[in-house]
Every structure is written in structure tokens, then in C-alpha cells.
């Protein structure tokens, strides 16, 4: 009987349990990214995928008896800081997109290539980086 308990405890060691959890998070984030269309939810889905990758990395580093692998921890720390800065930039872009188009939803479907393009080298481009006066886009219904 103790043999079975031993194998169960061995297989459920953090070195295998957390990487599996990380793989589940990665797949969950991928599913959420495909299904949901609101941009803030998609950014959350990408963050959850990133946490899944880091859980796999730290789970792999915790294998074996000795202290966990410091290189893996340094990589995870670097990854977390990169994820935060990418998320902050993505949220700033989404807010700016809502300011221009009135909605924060990235509907699938082919992009309309012939949308009017503003050229920043022209004179009437505003100095504060914003467009001269945003062309009146019709609101896409939800």
C-alpha cells in the first residue's frame, strides 16, 4: 500500500505537477484569446498564457533534490517584467484605439485595406502626435 502512496506522492511532486498546471494555463489562455473579442480580455488571456509559461519554467527548475535552478528564476523575473511592460503598452494602445473608433473590440474578419490613411509628413498633421481631426468613422454595432 505504501508503495502506491509513494508513487502517487512522487508523480505529484512539484517538478511534474506545476509544469502540468502551466500547460493547462497556456492552453486556457490560448482558448480565451481565440474566443473573446474584447481587447482587454485578450490582453488578460495573453498574461495568463505568460504565467503558464513561467509556471512551466519554474516547475522544471524545481526538479531534483537540490535548491532550484537560479538561472530559471532569473529568466522568469526577466519574463515577468517584459510581460508587465508589454501589457501596459497594449492597454495604452487600446485606450487610444477606443478614443479614435469608439469601441475596443477587435472583430475577426478581413481588415478593410482601403481605410483612409493619414500621412504624418503632411503639414496639417497636429504637433501633439494626434491626427488633425479624426475622420468621422461610423460606429460599428456591438
Amino acid at each position, binding site marked *: 500500500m505504501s508503495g502506491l502512496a509513494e508513487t502517487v506522492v512522487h508523480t505529484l511532486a512539484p517538478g511534474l505537477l506545476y509544469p502540468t498546471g502551466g500547460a493547462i494555463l497556456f492552453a486556457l489562455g490560448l482558448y480565451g484569446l481565440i474566443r473573446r473579442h474584447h481587447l482587454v480580455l485578450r490582453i488578460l488571456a*495573453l498574461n495568463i498564457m505568460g504565467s503558464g509559461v513561467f509556471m*512551466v519554467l519554474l516547475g*522544471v527548475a524545481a526538479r531534483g533534490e537540490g535548491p532550484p535552478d537560479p538561472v530559471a528564476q532569473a*529568466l522568469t523575473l526577466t519574463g515577468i517584467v517584459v510581460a508587465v511592460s508589454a501589457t501596459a503598452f497594449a492597454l495604452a*494602445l487600446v485606450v487610444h484605439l477606443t478614443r479614435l473608433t469608439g469601441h475596443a473590440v477587435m472583430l475577426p474578419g478581413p*481588415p478593410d485595406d482601403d481605410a483612409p*490613411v493619414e500621412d*504624418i509628413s503632411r503639414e496639417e498633421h497636429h504637433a501633439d*502626435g494626434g491626427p488633425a481631426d479624426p475622420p468621422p468613422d461610423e460606429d460599428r454595432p456591438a
Partner: protein
Amino acid sequence: MSPPGAEWLPAGIAGLVGLSLAVAVLATAWPRQAHRVGLLGALAITAWVLGLSALFLNTGPDPEAAATRVALGGWEAPLGLMLHLDGLSMTLLVLTAVVGLATSLYSLGYVHDRIERRQFWPLWLWLWAGLNMLFLSGDAFNLYITLEVVSLSAVALVAFTGTAAAVSGAVRYLLINILGSLSFLMGVVLLFGEHGVLDLVLLEARTEAGPTERMAAVLMTAGLMLKAALFPLHVWLAPAHGSAPAPVSAVLSGLVVTGSFYLILRLWMGVFAPLATPAFGILVGMLGVAALVWGSLQALRAGRLKSIVAYSTVAQFGYLLVAFPLMLVDPGAWRVVVFFAVVHALAKASVFLAAGTLQHAAGHDRLADLGEVLRARPRTVFALGLAGVSLMGLPFTGGFIAKYLLLEAGLGTVLAGSFIGVLWVLAIAGGGLLAAAYVLRMVAPSFQRGRADAGEAVSPWMDWVPLGLATVAALAGLAGPLTLNTLALTPGAP
């Protein structure tokens, strides 16, 4: 006795990384003079890269001696990070320097608003530094970090115009980039979990065709195909490149997408070499044919000049996919594929710059009403045509040499008995015809009779730089042998 310059090569490599970072940091810290710092920096980086290539070439014909590995901070491979320079990365560094210098000169004229200059130049110089570091990096996790540097600065530049189309294209591009990076990182984590090493050369020695390597190969290749907009995952490219400022879309189509392709090539020649089976080659080849057909049809249908050029990027990248099966059969063919990517980058960048000049002059880039401006600006149209000719692959241009060698390799596979080879040959020849169709479509209005109105005044930079880059793209054919034997200096290549 190693050749005279050899001992300066490691310092030169690390110095290139240091210089490109120093220029970017200085431009960020001193925004008022960012454009001057950018210009001087561009000249300095280009000079440094050319000097480095001179040093690299005369370290002799033997690839083992030429390939240099520099340990950063003095820490050797398994612990520290190694910079890795060989023929492949040297060629792409020279390409980045040439296109980067041309884009920097063009941007001097294109971005002339006082405020926007301060935002544009630091981002552009970080993108250039990121590309230089990407081509020099020899460590798996370091590749992920440099890919992030390139992706974030590229997205920021795509969103630079601030219009609804540009920002929505940038958001779509950013989400796909983050997804690609995470998938690439998961592949790196799998390899690290299995082998406990991150350096590419050490990984190459330890990998065999196990389940971990297969999963890592799938994840890393899918991530990079997302970033390189290779056929099945290309949906973000047209809106992003079409709505970005002209110099940015030139760099995106020319260098950033080529950088992702370089990584796929580097991984499949090194770490994942045991996994490259003929069946995989044929699958990739079929994707290439589909990309060629779809991209060209979209280019023929698109209404705006920049959209045509963006779709032609998707199409021309179909060539690189078609060449994969050729590489599996004829080992020497990989150098031809890289040479084609180099020529395509030069030609595509000059076409985008010329399109930017036309859009600036006309105020819009709807092809239907561009007639007057096309007729009134012979220089820009000649640049457009010359680069288009190189894209098409007419004789005496770089494109011709690349396509000729590709056809040679394709026929080689047919003679070697693989019937699928006929499809590759047809695809390569047909691709040239389709390219001719949409290039002529861009240039045709200038041949018709009608009013010639030069539109807005254009700064001299914007007038002459596209022409200069187009001539370099056309003359790349003459540099064919030089490029091919530089590429030969890559150890471990088949």
C-alpha cells in the same frame, strides 16, 4: 599565425552591440537632438558594420576560423551569454546597415514635425539596435528578448501616425507578436527543461529527435511564422504595413520580417536539424505556393499603393517557403534562399520608400487617382520601376540571379527524381510573372497621357533616397558571388 585582423573581431562584435545601444540610449535621453544623433549614429553603425565585414572576410576561407563566438562579461557558454557571428549573420547585418542607412536618410525628410521627430527617432534607433542584436545573438532566451525589443519598437512605430487604421493595425500586430513570443518562449523553456542549456551551439550538440524537441520545434516555428507573417498566419501584415509611415513599413517589410525568417532558418539548420524530414519540406513548400498565389491575387486586387506592396511581401515570402524543400534535397541551396531574401529586402524597402514619396506628394495613395503625380515625378517612378524589376527578377538584377539559382536548384531536384520538384519550378517561374503583373499595375498610369501635377513639394532626401536604394537592389546581382561565399563561411551548415 591567424590573419592580422582576427584578434580585433571579438572586440568588433561586442563594440557593434555597444555602439548601436549607445546611439539608441543617447537619442532617448536627448530628444531635442534625436534626429541629429540618429543621422550620425546611422553613419557610424554602417561604417562599423562594413569594417566588421572586412575583418570577417579576411579571416580566411575556412568557416571554422571565421565563425567567432564572444563570451559576454567573460563568462563561457553554459553560464554566460555568447554572441555568435558567422557568414549568415554577417550578410544580414550588412543588409540591415544598408537599408537602415537609407531609411534614416529618408526619415530626415519624411518626419519633419518638431514634436514627432522626438518620438520617431528613439523608437527607430531601438528597432535598429534590436535587429543588430538579433542577428548576433547565440543564446535561446536572448533571442526571445531581442525579438521582444524588435517587436515592441516595431508596433510603436506602426501606431505612429495615430489614425484609426494605424492604431487598430498596431493593436492587432502587437497581440499577434506577444502570442508569437510566448509560443517561442515555451519552446525555449521545453529545450531548457530537457537539456539544461540555453546556448544554441551546445543545444545543437545535445538535441536528438525526441518528443520534447518535436514539441519545441512546433512551438518555436509557429511563433516565428506568426512574426514573419508566413502564409497561414499572415492576416496582420497588410493593415500594419499599409498604414504605417513609409520608412517604418520599408523596414518592417524589409528587415523585421526577414529577421524572423533568419531565425527559422538558423533553428532548422542547427538545433532542429535532425527533425527536418522530406514530408515536412513538402508541406512547407505547399504553404509557399499558396502564399505566392494568394498574395499576388490580393496585390492585384488592392486599391492602395501601400496595400499592393504589403501583399507583395506576403507573396515574395512564399518564395522563401517554396525554397525549403529545395534545401532538404540540395544542401547548398540554403545560401541561394538567403541571397533571395537579401535582394527582396532591398527591393521591397525601396518600393515602400518610393510609395511614401508618392503618397506625400499626392496626399493619398489611392492608385486610381495617382496618375498625375506619377507622370510628374519621373525619379520616383523610375525608382519604383527599378525595384519592381528586381522583384520580378528580370535579367541583370539581383532578383534575376536569385531566381535563376532557385530555378537551378529546383531543376536539380526534378532531375534527382522528385516529381514534386516540378511544382516548385512552376511556382518559382509563375511567381515572377505574378510579380510582374502587380509591379506593372503600380507603374502603368505614368505611361498614359494626361495632366502632370507634381503635388506637394518633397524634400530632396525623399526624392533621391528611393532611387539610390533601388539601384543598390538592382546592383545586388553583381555582388552575388561575394554574398554567396560570405554565406559559405557558416560552420555547421549542410
